[in-house]
């Protein structure tokens, strides 16, 4: 660093090293700027900006502003850009905003203003150009940071304090802005428990895939008569219409199995009864909105199999729709 500082003492022209650095990094910085402006995805432009900032940090260093260079990297590239990225996350990264102009003539105006501004600025600088420049040699004599500090805490102390205040205010303001008032009271544990008991089912919900040929979340569990059980269907899947239908065959098998088991126990099982119903249930499918009527599993007995069947098959229906 100190070597660089001495190099900066040159009067009319900087060191070739710096020149090289400039000519290499400068275009990159510009490219970054362009990227910031032109990238369709906000994340990308954020990254470009970050790049530009780093390069700028380099230039700061090269200009003998060591402190600022560091600050640039730490605060800007480190903190601010991260903040940007966080917000991007909040807002949704995936959204790629189109560069198609909506305001009439805005693009041309913008181009005009930008060009005009740029040309004027450059012209102005060119006009004000002085051949020579005094380096920061003696300014940075006892270290750049010390120099800054001495200025900061003497001449600019008031401004410094004020900026402090400003930062505090900003922090408070930000929290205020982003703070979300919660309207309802948080439920205590006791209340939650009470709800559970007073609710529909005390036991945990049945897992899907009971009596299933292959236990998969997208297959409803079957009730003893072979009709699909509502509760075993996952709401999300149903919402997406991804519940697979239970094949008739398997339903029949289940029924047969039951019958055999009954015979083995020496009981008479009127297995014939459910089959046709379930079959009919499978063919005569109700509309999805009817399926909204979710029946209570506890009385999901032979009496109400019709409805359950219908609901069961609704899922399949939806599945078909989804596939089409």
């Amino acid at each position: 660093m100190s070597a660089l500082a001495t190099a900066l003492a040159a009067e009319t022209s900087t060191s070739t090293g710096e020149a090289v650095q400039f000519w290499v990094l400068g275009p990159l910085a510009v490219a970054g700027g362009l990227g910031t402006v032109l990238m369709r995805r906000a994340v990308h432009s954020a990254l470009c900006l970050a790049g530009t900032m780093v390069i700028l940090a380099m230039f700061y260093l090269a200009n003998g502003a060591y402190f600022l260079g560091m600050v640039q990297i730490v605060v800007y590239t480190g903190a601010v850009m991260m903040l940007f990225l966080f917000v991007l996350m909040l807002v949704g990264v995936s959204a790629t905003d189109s560069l198609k102009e909506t305001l009439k003539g805005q693009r041309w105006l913008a181009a005009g203003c930008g060009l005009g501004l740029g040309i004027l600025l450059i012209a102005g600088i060119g006009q004000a150009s002085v051949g020579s420049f005094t380096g920061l040699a003696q300014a940075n004599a006892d270290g750049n940071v010390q120099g800054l500090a001495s200025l900061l805490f003497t001449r600019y102390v008031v401004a410094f304090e004020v900026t402090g205040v400003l930062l505090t205010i900003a922090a408070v303001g930000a929290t205020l802005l982003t703070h979300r008032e919660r309207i309802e009271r948080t439920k205590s544990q006791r209340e939650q428990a009470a709800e559970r008991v007073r609710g529909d089912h005390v036991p945990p919900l049945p897992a899907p895939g009971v009596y299933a040929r292959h236990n998969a979340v997208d297959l409803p569990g079957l009730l003893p008569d072979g009709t699909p059980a509502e509760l075993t269907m996952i709401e999300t899947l149903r919402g997406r219409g991804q519940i697979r239908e239970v094949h008739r065959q398997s339903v029949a098998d289940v029924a047969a199995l039951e019958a055999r088991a009954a015979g083995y126990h020496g009981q008479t099982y009127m297995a014939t009864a459910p089959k046709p119903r379930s079959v009919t249930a499978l063919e005569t499918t109700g509309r999805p909105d009817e399926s909204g009527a979710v029946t209570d599993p506890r009385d999901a007995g032979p009496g109400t199999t019709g409805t359950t069947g219908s609901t069961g098959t609704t899922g399949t229906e939806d599945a078909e729709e989804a596939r089409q």
Partner: protein
Amino acid sequence: MESLIGLLVGAPLLGAALLLVGGRRLDRVGHWLATALAATSFVLAAVLFSDLLDREGEERVLHEHLFSWVPVADLRADVAFQLDQLSMTFVLLITSVGTLIHLYSIGYMAHDERRRRFFAYLNLFLGAMLLLVLADNYLLLYVGWEGVGLASFLLIGFWQHKPSAATAAKKAFIVNRVGDIGLSIAILLMFTTFGTFAFEPVLDGATGASEATLTGIGLMLLLAACGKSAQVPLQSWLGDAMEGPTPVSALIHAATMVTAGVYLITRSGAIFDAAPDAQTVVVVVGAVTLLFGAIVGCAKDDIKKALAGSTMSQIGYMMLAAGLGPVGYVFAIMHLVTHGFFKAGLFLGAGSVMHAMNDEVDMRRYGGLRRHMPVTFVTFGLAYLAIIGFPYLSGFFSKDEIIYAGFAKGGTEGWILGGVMLLGAALTAYYMTRIMLMTFFGEKRWQPDAHGHEPHPHEAPLTMTIPMIVLAFGSVFAGFLFDSGEAFVHWLEPVTGLEHGDSPVGHGTVGLAATAVMVVGVAGAWFQYGRRPVPAVAPTGRLLTRAARRDLLQDDFNHAAFVTPGNYLTRGLVYLDHKLVDGLVNGTAASFGGLSGRLRRVQNGFARSYAVSMFGGAALLIAATLLMRAV
């Protein structure tokens, strides 16, 4: 003595004010009060008259300065009176006839619930008329002039519920206003020329002014006279004015007001004498009107309108005489006075006839009334003889003098004028005889009116007959009195001056000629209306007759010339004012609104376009600074 003049004018005005303000509580005594006040002013007039008679010819003038009216810088308009022979004559005529007609109206308006107002208006008229003839400057005269106009407006339109009456009143006022322009311009000219408009300085100084100016003044005065005296071309109102109650027609539109024009011309004699061109115009106007009125009078079946035509014609005589200058002034006034008597008599007679016939005015519905209403018949007949110039009745003297004066103009003009007037005399005899025959002779032609009332003619009440009788006396003897020893001439001479023009034809010849044409006229009428029965519905006569029935198309002309274009003009202007003048204003407002609306578009709410303007501004600023540093 002078102070009496104020009272003379004041009495009737006071009456008018009292009756108008007094309200209903005066309903019962109102008419008597008004009549009493009119009589008062007549008495005062008589007193003043006697006072004047005591004086010598030149001193017969009284001045009464009441108060200074409008003093501004060197403009001095005073309320001051001047009573000389001329005004005295008028005052006597006005007050006497006025009083009589007040009396008459008591009977005539007996059944009208607004009688009090009627008398108030009559008094107002009397006061205004006296103001007119007594003023000692033209401005005050103008006040009286408009005052009588107002009174005539109110009285013509007295039966306001009749649209025809209201229209007639309006018409009369407007036409008179047109004349008034003339008077006001004349006054303005006088002021700019002489720096005053009091009679004496103006008339004395008249010779000092340029003839052009004087001609201007004269013509303007003539215009005014035409308006008031219903002379061509401003005559159109007089016929319609007959919508008013008959006493009004008698007092205002026959005896007094309409003669104000003659008074004005005579009063301004000095000016006219110095402006011969103006005089010529006066004469022409008089001659034309004379024939015009006579012709109209021959054709009308409405008795009052026929008489109105006669009035125009007679005033034409006076105008003509006045236009002849000092030769004629005296006789103009003389004829004016006699005419005042007999024409008032005629109108009152007509009034009593209408009174008897349920306000029927169509002479074709009369006939044979002489048996039913003898007094009316006799008085009317006497007035009739007077107007047609029956020898040694009042009309005879005055008219013959005028005709003589016309001849005295000399040269071809003299012959023309004389001829015209003789023709007029013949016509007068004709239409008057016509009226006479259709009204009082022949068999009765009246039928039940709209309500089925069979009119049963009866003689009018005393209050109505007495005035008629008095007036009849007047019309019989006035002329004789005036002529005896040229009393009237000597009386007026100091004011008007007098010349005895030498005419190619002597007095006697003129008298004979006049009598001759009169006989011709009477005979003509007799052959047409006396011998054969009068058809109850007017036959569609010859073109002239039809035109005459329509007042020789005067109204049609006015309508086509002024009314219709005026209406279009006003409508057009209203449209323009709304669309153009107002439109311009609203247009400016609207354009501003539109502009701001467009500017508002710039504020489209999009942060980015604001940003554009921001950066644009920044760029401009930089450019500016650079330029500053460059230069």
